[in-house]
């Protein structure tokens, strides 16, 4: 192993690192700005200077920028040498000449990399006595605030935004001392990952805008390790709370999933917990037409148990966005026979197919890290940017990774960002993205558009190329076959390719086709992985519960005489057509809905039970790859609201006369693992409430948490004792273990001298790699694979246009299709509007213009929607916005007539 000497001490390093990376990996304090582990080095800021010596005798040395200098065996450098030390202080001072006197009103203050580095370099008095440069700011939309005066021109923002996230509307302007970072003109940042600027920018230029309206310092927030609730990838997040409201969400580093970046839905969507639509008290409605009246928790318990005890048949309807524990509690209450999945018909079918594929193998599921490091990627159908945004960013990271590999062949180090980019300028030739409409990956990947059935056929054809056991779809044209051959050839060469697909086009054949491709590759001996984007955060978890499809209940609903239905954290108006929803409510006299916010099912139910949200309750999700992850409650309300599983437990206790059932989360977890085979490895993924380090729990509050003795002084002079958390090893307190907890229990990143997000450096074994206390991930489908491969046969037939009709597919939106994210204030300013997407050809033929109002008729139901033109869409198909508020649920894909609406405007 190569060794370098830093200030005469030997350090082992890894081949191919730069000095800065090596020094930070060893926990040394070396200031830097323009370098970022997710961006590489460009040597722009000159802050990371160190002294490099010829040999042991050399005491003078020469100054080099550590981020631009490869660390080589036997190298002697010094961080502490007077020359470089004073140079670094000077660099800080130069940066500060124009820096505004803003810290007190700057949202970065207290977690500012510039503050930290300035302190680290020892520059503490401003000697510059001249006027300061100023800039005008821009309005960049609801997510990111802009305060240009604070810029130190490190270029991280544009490098992240353009080179990593693929945005085009942020740029650098002007020259010399006036360099400006912003858009060409005011306007919302277009990229779906703009929120990361908040963490990437080392200063207060880009800050969290929604946070600004009710700002708190980092040290005053109560934080807990949590998991994003808004898509199936399960990115790790840190929500911060003050005064019973979630103030902001930050990235929680997990090298296997989201590393340094989140999508904007995840960052800004979770404030739905503060929304006006939150349900804090339960409601009772005697008759369907009555106005609901508020009832206490005790009354809720009484009325629910009364309904249950007199019920002939009680059914439970689970939810893909409720925790495993909640679903399991409901299943226990109603019995497996009466437990339904609460999914739309298509979702049920697709989800069980996905489960079957990942369980049966032989292809393992891919984590985002696998995607980033894959040597070939094929996306079949899924519009990732809207259904699994972070996965789309992972593909972009993969393209960078592959470029680095290419550059390595000519001796360019992976971290030498600019050189890599100059060397590899073309698009990736190993990433293929085939979708129904534009996918926003066109600029980096080989991408084209097809009808979903044709995409599936293409998938079959690729699999056929790889393994002739797979049937070749009939009637494929030469062009498509050539494409299949090309993609197959690339995949064949790859050692660890990833095949990505998903459920959002409601096309089962896509799942089959992608499995065939992955399996055919596995048959060849490559370690191909498969990755499915699923509809919701715990879709995979729900699929493990052996729930019956909701559609089955709907079929027998009249005959089955259900008296009570318990709907768990689920809005059935998003699962059933309005007609079926009517039937549901008509045939079930008492519907009990549990949820944390107002939605249609809650509004229509007899008893609406307020449950706490992810911010106040602890639970577990299984993400799309089968990874089990627990999210921990961030805070507890004074007027405590219970988790769904606790409410259901109380009902079980009463109805089954088990007075001491499930006293805490650990007990229900144990029961669950016992009853559900697939979950038996679950234990290793979580820490029990009794887990302590040095006899202490892990504090959710920083040791700088202020206002303890005044926060509730307006209510009582007696300071309440800290709440006891019986469910987790975390404490609602600032007291506890101060070191670094295991990776899944890190409530916030902080180290002395490192107050900003970059303190994550100190938690990593090697910068950019795994955390020091990394727990091995528990991935449920990594075992139990059979070697035998049975390919899916019967490819779909190629799409044939039906005259006068369109085949309608759903179109998801990152901002809008997730019902809860849409309630968040920031996202509600950025919502997509209902529309129908039509291909260019069709629109021309029909003489429809963008914005023409049309009636979309499916069966006898009508949707009146404005037309949006997607030039790339095949004619004969259309994309209808899906999941947006105010749009009736449509069962898709279906054929529809589209006519210009009479009252066209």
């Amino acid at each position, binding site marked *: 192993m190569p060794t370098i000497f830093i200030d005469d001490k030997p350090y082992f390093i890894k081949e191919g690192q730069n000095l800065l990376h090596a020094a930070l990996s060893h926990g040394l304090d070396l200031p830097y700005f323009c370098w970022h582990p997710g961006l590489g080095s460009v040597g722009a800021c000159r802050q990371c200077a160190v002294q490099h010596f010829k040999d042991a005798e050399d005491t003078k040395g020469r100054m080099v920028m550590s981020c631009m200098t490869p660390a080589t065996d036997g190298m002697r450098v010094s961080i502490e040498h007077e020359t470089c030390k004073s140079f670094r202080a000077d660099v800080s001072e130069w940066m500060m000449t124009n820096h505004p*006197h803003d810290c007190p009103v700057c949202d970065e203050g207290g977690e500012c990399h510039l503050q930290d580095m300035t302190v680290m370099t020892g520059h503490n008095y401003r000697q510059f006595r001249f006027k300061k440069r*100023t800039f005008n700011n821009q309005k960049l939309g609801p997510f990111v605030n802009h305060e240009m*005066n604070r810029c130190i021109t490190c270029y991280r923002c544009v490098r992240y935004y353009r080179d990593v996230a693929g945005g085009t509307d942020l740029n650098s302007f*002007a020259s010399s001392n*006036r360099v400006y970072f912003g858009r060409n003109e005011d306007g919302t940042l277009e990229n779906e990952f703009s929120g990361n600027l908040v963490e990437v920018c080392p200063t207060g230029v880009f800050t969290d805008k929604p946070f600004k*309206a009710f700002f708190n*310092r980092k040290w005053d927030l109560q934080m807990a390790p949590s998991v994003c609730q808004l898509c199936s990838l399960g990115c790790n997040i840190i929500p911060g709370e003050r005064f019973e409201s979630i103030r902001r969400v930050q990235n929680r580093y997990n090298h296997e999933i989201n590393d340094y970046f989140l999508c904007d839905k995840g960052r800004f969507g979770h404030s739905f917990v503060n929304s006006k639509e939150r349900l804090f008290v339960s409601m009772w409605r005697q008759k369907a037409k009555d106005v609901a009246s508020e009832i206490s928790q005790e009354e809720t318990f009484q009325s629910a148990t009364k309904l249950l005890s007199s019920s002939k048949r009680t059914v439970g309807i689970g939810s893909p966005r409720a925790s495993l524990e909640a679903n399991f509690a409901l299943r226990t209450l109603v019995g497996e026979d009466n437990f339904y999945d609460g999914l739309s018909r298509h979702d049920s079918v697709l989800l069980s197919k996905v489960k079957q594929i990942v369980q049966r193998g032989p292809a393992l599921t891919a984590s985002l890290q696998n995607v980033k490091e894959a040597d070939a990627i094929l996306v079949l159908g899924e519009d990732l940017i809207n259904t699994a945004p972070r996965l789309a960013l992972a593909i972009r990271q993969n393209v960078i990774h592959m470029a680095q590999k290419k550059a390595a062949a000519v001796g360019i180090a992976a971290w030498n960002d600019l050189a890599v980019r100059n060397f590899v300028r073309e698009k990736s030739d190993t990433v293929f993205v085939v979708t129904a409409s534009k996918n926003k990956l066109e600029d980096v990947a080989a991408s084209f558009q097809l009808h979903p059935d044709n995409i599936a056929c293409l998938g079959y054809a690729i699999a056929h190329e790889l393994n002739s056991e797979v049937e070749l779809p009939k009637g494929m044209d030469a062009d498509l076959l050539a494409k299949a051959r090309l993609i197959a050839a690339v995949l064949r060469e790859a050692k660890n390719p990833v095949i990505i697909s998903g459920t959002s086009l409601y096309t089962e054949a896509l799942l089959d086709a992608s499995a065939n491709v992955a399996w055919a590759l596995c048959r060849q001996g490559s370690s191909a992985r498969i990755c499915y984007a699923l509809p919701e955060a715990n879709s995979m978890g729900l699929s493990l519960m052996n729930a019956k499809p909701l559609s089955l209940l709907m079929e027998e609903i009249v005959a089955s005489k259900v008296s009570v239905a318990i709907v768990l954290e689920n809005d059935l108006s998003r699962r059933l057509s309005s007609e079926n929803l009517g039937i549901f409510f008509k045939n079930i006299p008492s519907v009990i809905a549990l949820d944390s916010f107002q939605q249609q099912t809650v509004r229509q139910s007899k008893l609406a039970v307020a449950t706490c949200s992810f911010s106040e309750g602890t639970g577990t999700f299984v993400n799309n790859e089968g990874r089990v992850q627990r999210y921990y409650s961030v805070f507890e309300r004074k007027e405590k609201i219970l988790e769904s599983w606790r409410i259901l437990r109380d009902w079980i206790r009463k109805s089954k006369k088990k007075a001491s059932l499930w006293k805490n989360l650990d007990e229900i977890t144990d029961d669950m693992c016992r009853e559900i085979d697939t979950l038996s490895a679950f234990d290793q993924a979580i820490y029990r409430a009794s887990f302590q380090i040095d006899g202490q729990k892990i504090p959710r509050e920083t040791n700088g948490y202020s206002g303890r003795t*005044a926060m509730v002084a307006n209510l009582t002079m007696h300071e309440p004792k800290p709440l006891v958390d019986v469910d987790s090893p975390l404490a609602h307190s600032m007291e506890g273990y101060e070191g670094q907890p295991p990776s899944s229990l890190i409530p916030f990143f902080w180290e002395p001298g490192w107050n900003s997000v970059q303190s994550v450096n100190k938690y990593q074994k090697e910068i950019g790699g795994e955390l020091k206390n990394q727990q091995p991930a528990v991935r449920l489908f990594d075992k139990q694979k059979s070697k035998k491969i049975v390919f899916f046969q019967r490819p779909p037939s190629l799409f044939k246009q039906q005259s006068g009709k369109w085949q309608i597919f759903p179109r998801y939106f990152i901002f809008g299709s997730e019902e809860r994210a849409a309630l968040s204030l920031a996202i509600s300013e950025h919502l997509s509007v209902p529309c129908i997407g039509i291909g260019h050809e069709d629109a021309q033929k029909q003489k429809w213009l963008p914005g023409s109002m049309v009636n979309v008729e499916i069966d006898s139901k009508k949707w009146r929607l404005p037309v949006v033109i997607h030039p790339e869409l095949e004619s004969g198909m259309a994309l209808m916005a899906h999941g947006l508020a105010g749009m009736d649920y449509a069962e898709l894909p279906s054929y529809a007539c589209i006519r210009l609406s009479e009252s066209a405007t």
Partner: protein
Amino acid sequence: MFSILKGLWIVFKHGFRKRETVLYPEERPILSPRYRGRIVLTRDPDGGERCVACYLCSAVCPVDCIVIQATEDENGRRYPKSFRINFSRCIYCGLCEEACPTTAIQLTPDFEMAEYDRKNMVYEKEDLLIAGPGKNHEYNFYKVAGLAIKGKEKGQGIEENEPVDIRSLMP
């Protein structure tokens, strides 16, 4: 023996000295402005609220008896939406005053804060905010900060240049 007598004599002599104690409350002591008593929130010379809700006082307070919530007004000024000090906890150490970057929070020579009910020692913002600038008559944070607020646009602060024209082609 002699030393005892000497001691008695000195004590006896003190009986004729000028009194340091006063007959409080009839008579009131004159305290230095630096005395650390009741805390106030002051205003800048223009009458604007000085506190910018930076949370430094609450962070430094050793007994954690200050709690603040920041917000922003329509003019872009950050200010405390709520500001509470629990004086039954305060130890009048003055660290908050020292930490304050805007000289908003100041300790005053008023020490008469005894109450029969502890509840009355919890002061909210309206109890703390006074009409004047307190001990510092000049400082106006927003005049020196880079942040633009209504009435002080970018470049209009003290020691600031006009905003850069980013479209200019001059070197």
